[in-house]
């Protein structure tokens, strides 16, 4: 299964980006073989409005089995729920720490948006 993480850089040592809709980029991590793929979030960063929705659409189209991020607002959460993608919240500093926590089952799955829209 592949999970998506919000990151501010490339590779497993990158820092996590606590924002979802306006995250710098998404790292797709394959839990089965440990490979990593990077997807830029240029459109979300540029969007005047609707960044969370747009990012959630991107994630949904990538066919991931879960999302690990800092926070998730109401519009993005609605799209992710419709797409059936579980959302996990973390305060981990780096992508590899967040993956370790995901594998260990210690991440909190959020069942409602945890910030208002336009949170930065």
């Amino acid at each position, binding site marked *: 299964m592949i999970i998506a993480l919000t990151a501010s850089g490339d590779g497993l040592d990158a820092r996590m980006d606590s924002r979802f809709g306006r995250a710098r980029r998404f790292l797709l991590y394959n839990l089965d073989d440990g490979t990593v793929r990077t997807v830029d979030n240029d459109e979300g960063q540029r*969007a005047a*409005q*609707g960044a969370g*929705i*747009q990012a*959630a*659409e991107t994630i*949904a*189209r990538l066919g991931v089995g879960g999302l690990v991020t800092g926070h998730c607002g109401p*519009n993005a959460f*609605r*799209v992710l729920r*419709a*797409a059936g993608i579980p959302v996990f919240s973390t305060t981990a500093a780096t992508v590899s720490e967040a993956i370790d926590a995901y594998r260990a089952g210690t991440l909190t799955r959020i069942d409602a948006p945890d910030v208002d829209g336009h949170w930065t």
Partner: protein
Amino acid sequence: MMLGVASGKGGTGKTTVAVNLARAFGSGVWLADCDVEEPNAHLFLRGTTIGSRTVSLPVPQVEAGLCDACGACARLCQYHAIVSFGTPPLLFPELCHGCGGCVRVCPRGAIAEVDRRIGVVETQRDGHITLVQGRLDVGVALVPPLVRAVKASLPRDMPVIVDAPPGTSCPVIATIRGLDALALVTEPTPFGLHDLSLAVDMVRQLNIPFGVVVNRVGVGDDRVHGFCRREGIPILLDIPDDRRIAEVCSRGRLVVDELPEYRPAFARLWAGACALAAPVPALAPL
């Protein structure tokens, strides 16, 4: 004749110029407050409301029984107001610009449009001034459709003064597009000059004749006047930095009523703007 009063920088005196110019008219004039996020021209008038109507945008509504979740609507929508991935679409009406594209591309006719209220257009009358103002509902972010509704309420055969929102973004473009001339209000400071030059770039792209009103002359320096000279931009009016003007405005009164010595200056402003809009035509060869 429709004259817009605009500025790059906020707080330069657009509304002061617009309402005093309207008052200086001896006969019927219309004043349009297109700063629909915070209309304030009415504060200077003692009008009675003679009309009010709500303004709505058409937003999509999906008939789930007809939708086969093909996603054509979501692929079209650049604002992500309608989202679909193998399920009937999710709707985000607050992001919808009301273009109606989703209705047209839906191959099953599953999308209808319903009205979403965004604000009101109100009309007031105070003597010879008819004020039309837009008032955006709290929480609504989409300004241009309400601005266009205000402009659609204006007569074509009367003098009209249009008070624009500040800045150079979509609400301003929606306001000034199609006007006959513009007065760009600025103050003679480096900040005023910076934002004036942005406004000048915008107006030149839109090809609208324009001049400059310099407000509070005496507070800053002469760089705004130098800029206008170099660029060949006419100065329509210099308003001095007169403490009495600030006092009159802060009491919600009109300068041309309380300080009548300024009345001729506003009459000249209108004449200068009209000359911009309809320059004297060259004599045709006999």
